[in-house]
């Protein structure tokens, strides 16, 4: 089973210096944000845990102290059954483990980044099959 990630426009991340992976996908900010965020989702089977790497690019990236991650299926009105574990790395990078998509269909990954100011919210549309 593969988890295929799609983003509106479905373009691979531009070659920014901080992008960790050519397959990284740009997250959609809820509002205008000074930070650009990218995610790399490791392939996984339905109902099996997988990891996700997050990278925030921009001057304020090192100021991000904490990131919260969740995911929902908007059409089904439910989220994940497990709490992902977010580990801060360095230079605005975060590793997320324990993500589980337990049903096929459209998921929306939701990311909240907490720094010095107001939190910034991002989303990523993912199709799980």
């Amino acid at each position, binding site marked *: *089973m593969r988890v295929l990630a799609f983003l509106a426009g479905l373009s691979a991340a531009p070659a920014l210096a901080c992008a960790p992976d050519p397959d990284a996908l740009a997250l959609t900010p809820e509002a205008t944000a000074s930070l650009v965020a990218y995610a790399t989702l490791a392939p996984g*089977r*339905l*109902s099996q*845990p997988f990891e996700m790497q997050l990278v925030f690019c921009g001057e304020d990236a090192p100021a991000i102290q904490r990131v919260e991650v969740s995911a929902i*299926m908007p*059409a*089904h*009105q*439910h989220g*994940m*059954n*497990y*709490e*992902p*574990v977010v580990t801060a790395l360095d230079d605005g990078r975060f590793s997320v*483990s*324990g993500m589980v998509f*337990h*049903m*096929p*269909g459209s998921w929306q990954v939701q990311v909240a980044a907490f720094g010095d100011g107001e939190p910034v919210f991002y989303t990523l549309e993912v199709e799980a*099959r």
Partner: protein
Amino acid sequence: MIRRTLGRLCLLVGLMLVSAAQAEVLLSEDEIARALSHGPWPPAFEPDPSNRVSGLPAAIALGEGLFSDPVLSRDGTMACASCHDPAHGFAEPRARANGKVLLDRNALALVNLPAHRWFGWSGDTDNLWAQSLTPIVNADEMDQDAAGLKQALVTSRWADDYAAVFGPPAGQDADDVLVNIAKALAAFQETLVTGPTSFDRFRDALEAGDLATAALYPEAAQRGLKIFLGRGNCALCHTGPAFTNGEFHDAGVPYFITETRVDTGRHGGLEALKASPYTLAGPYSDDPEQQGAWAVRQVRPLHSDFGTFRVPGLRGAARTAPYMHDGSLADLRAVVRHYNTIDMERLHADGEAILAPLGLSATEADDLVQFLRSLSDDQP
């Protein structure tokens, strides 16, 4: 000339066969891709790292013997097989199991268990040996305790077999004996895997591009599979080779046991899980790396857990009627009828929005039943 004619004839026959085969495979490319996700089957055996006797022949034999021996119950009247009847797919024909009292739930079939992350209808355990231990010490079931079980073991015909696997029980703590017996039972149950079915031959032929063989799968079952994958929404929860996502959902079955008592389902299961010393994160696991313990640590209690129950696998299900957590649906036709006319009032108002009456015709309902039966034709 004769050779050329024969060659054309063979080509013509070949084309006709391919054409006929293609006409009889009713699935679209997308449906074929989704059908492939339900295999291959059976899976290769992988020992349970939390159970040091997983896969050991002596432990499997001990577990098989204990499974059918009432010596595990306090009064010597009840065995695992009393409710998990090998002749009934390791389930039982009664709607609700009879222990010391009439229990609240139907006895789940004990097949294809390695595919699960959670065990029992409410997922109150995260491993098979803990699930095997639960009915032994449940006062409403086998009503045993660790000390009583150890005493019963050392005076039973299984004492030498136990010692051969786990060492002499005399010097062992009674709780360790209890867990060891549960691990032998688990080692046996891991071997209860259903065989390849006509669906698997269909699925494997599709994967191999062998349309002629795939076309041998009855058209009624193919039409049922299309419903299963599509408008039936069955494959949203019954995913993967074992036909279950292993998680918990509200299937619209009443959770009132009596007018004043409810079965809280996953809600209560999580409470029991969190209080249990027998999890993959606990001291009785034999896995120093605690693989799989992430689930008990990271599982998220949800308001919508109340009254939800684990999605059962569908392989072998035709042998294990009745169905649902309370055994309230007598056969597969009743299950399809339930989802076909599901009472939306019975679903959580704030729960997931998955189910709606399917509105299948009688023929379509028959087709879906034919597909479900094709998951159990590995045995006569």
